[in-house]
């Protein structure tokens, strides 16, 4: 399992009700269902991913995150998760508000644009960063709102969102001592557990 998903699953209580926004192929929900008897729903708009969810026996609902979550009641899920999709939505701040409204707890992960490799690309090469992890070029990238850990935390402060937990990983290893030392420079993926 992807490093960020592996950490998230540890944060989820057995038998909880989970909504996974931009759930991809349903990997996390499938694992949570098998291992923690979690009752989950994924939200996705990519037809191939929806097909994989159906194959995996994962509940998947075709719905565009950018249209909001108005069809869900306040606090109707124990946890609302969004992994690696914050940077791809039209208004990350509004989606975050909706997640906090619908979920009792919220977990968000996103790629850190403050990572040294991204900084290196921009500062020294003068090009928008392209990596194995972020393989798109600027004109075809679905990632339209990149941010760094610092940026995200500033948004949380501004919105009075409480950061319950934060973990930083790189794409291969989790919790490496180096990433903990200087997360905004060395961490590739941030995982935030937030609440309001």
């Amino acid at each position, binding site marked *: 399992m992807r490093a960020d998903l592996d950490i998230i699953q540890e944060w989820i209580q057995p038998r909880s009700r989970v909504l996974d926004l931009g759930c991809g192929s349903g990997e996390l929900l499938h694992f949570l269902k098998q291992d923690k008897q979690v009752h989950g729903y994924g939200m996705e708009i990519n*037809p191939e991913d929806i*097909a994989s969810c*159906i194959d995996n026996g994962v509940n998947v*609902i075709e*719905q565009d995150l950018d249209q909001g979550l108005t069809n*869900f009641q306040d606090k109707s899920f124990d946890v609302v998760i969004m992994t690696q999709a914050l940077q791809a939505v039209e208004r990350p701040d509004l989606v975050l508000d909706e997640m906090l409204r619908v979920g009792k707890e919220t977990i968000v992960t996103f790629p850190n644009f403050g990572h040294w490799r991204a900084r290196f690309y921009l500062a020294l090469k003068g090009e928008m960063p392209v990596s194995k992890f972020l393989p798109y070029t600027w004109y075809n990238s679905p990632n339209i709102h990149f941010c760094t850990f610092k940026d995200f935390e500033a948004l949380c402060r501004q919105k009075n969102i409480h950061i319950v937990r934060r973990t930083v990983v790189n794409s291969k290893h989790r919790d490496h001592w180096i990433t903990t030392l200087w997360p905004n420079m060395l961490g590739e993926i941030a995982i935030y557990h937030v609440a309001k």
Partner: protein
Amino acid sequence: MPEQIAADSVGLVQPQTLQFDQPLSLRSGRVLPHYQLVIETYGELNAERSNAVLICHALSGHHHLAGYHSMDDKKPGWWDSAIGPGKVIDTNRFFVVGLNNLGGCHGSTGPQSINPETGLEYGPDFPIVTVSDWVQSQVRLADRFGIQQWAAVVGGSLGGMQALHWSIDYPDRLRHCLMIASAAKLTAQNIAFNEVARQAISKDPAFHGGRYKDHATIPKQGLMLARMLGHITYLSDDSMREKFGRELRSGKLSYNYDADFEVESYLRYQGESFSGAFDANTYLLMTKALDYFDPSVDFDHDLVATLQGAKCGFLLVAFTTDWRFAPERSREVVDALVAAGKDVSYAEIESTHGHDAFLIPIPRYMDVFGRYMNRVGADIGLAAAKQELS
């Protein structure tokens, strides 16, 4: 006429008529003392009787889902695109049952049957049957085959309403509900279309209060109008533009009131052929069954509470240009199922075909449908389709 039957067709098939002698109490308070259901089946019921799939038909559908009755048939059954060996509802794996619902005009007991009390044809006196009455009669059909639990109940439009009703009324008797291009109840606009259709039929001078057979006639004009109106609502603006545009039949305007445009002659043809083949009293009854459908009336109009007792898994599918059963109506059901904590998946298929899309083998639709049916198969321990085919 099929010159040769395709390898993925169920081939030549025959309907059967089943007699039920136990009276059926209807929602209206009336009772059918006994009745017949005409059915067709494809594939083999396995020893555990676990691989049965019930297909519920829509307004003008019937029991003939797939294959041909004879080599002279112009067209196969109405859902031949989805049912057959290796197709999304794979008859190599599933035992597929189709029926003509009560009140229909394709052989099951309905307005054209003899009323045992009078010895005469029921005609307009045939009781109005509802979706829940149909489901009750389908339960007896399942009992007749010794099917304790359907692997899936599947339907589009009015058929999807029956599938949904199964999940509410008989939660233990189906594992999966596939509800396609349907709704938990009709909107006022949708009822309005049905009312215009009914008025067209009942105001036809040849209708004779539903006793047209006694006058050796049929309300052809009324049925034709009803079908033309219905047909427009089953298509989309886009699909009509694509199909007809403003094409003229003879290349120039006639400056009289004949059909100038292709779309006019198409609708006339559709109405014409339908009016010769479908019974007017059945049409009225089917539209009433649609209008009356609202399972939440028994639960204080709370759809979440209505679905709370359901135990099956759900797949809902809607089509982007379907305005008769718009995606919003499917999403209402999905939201209620999520709120009730039920297993549900939902796909919204891009299509220009309007409501008719549910009968068209659109690649993504067939893909989602087929994958879900694989899951249905896996759930009852059937080997994956691909392995079995190879």
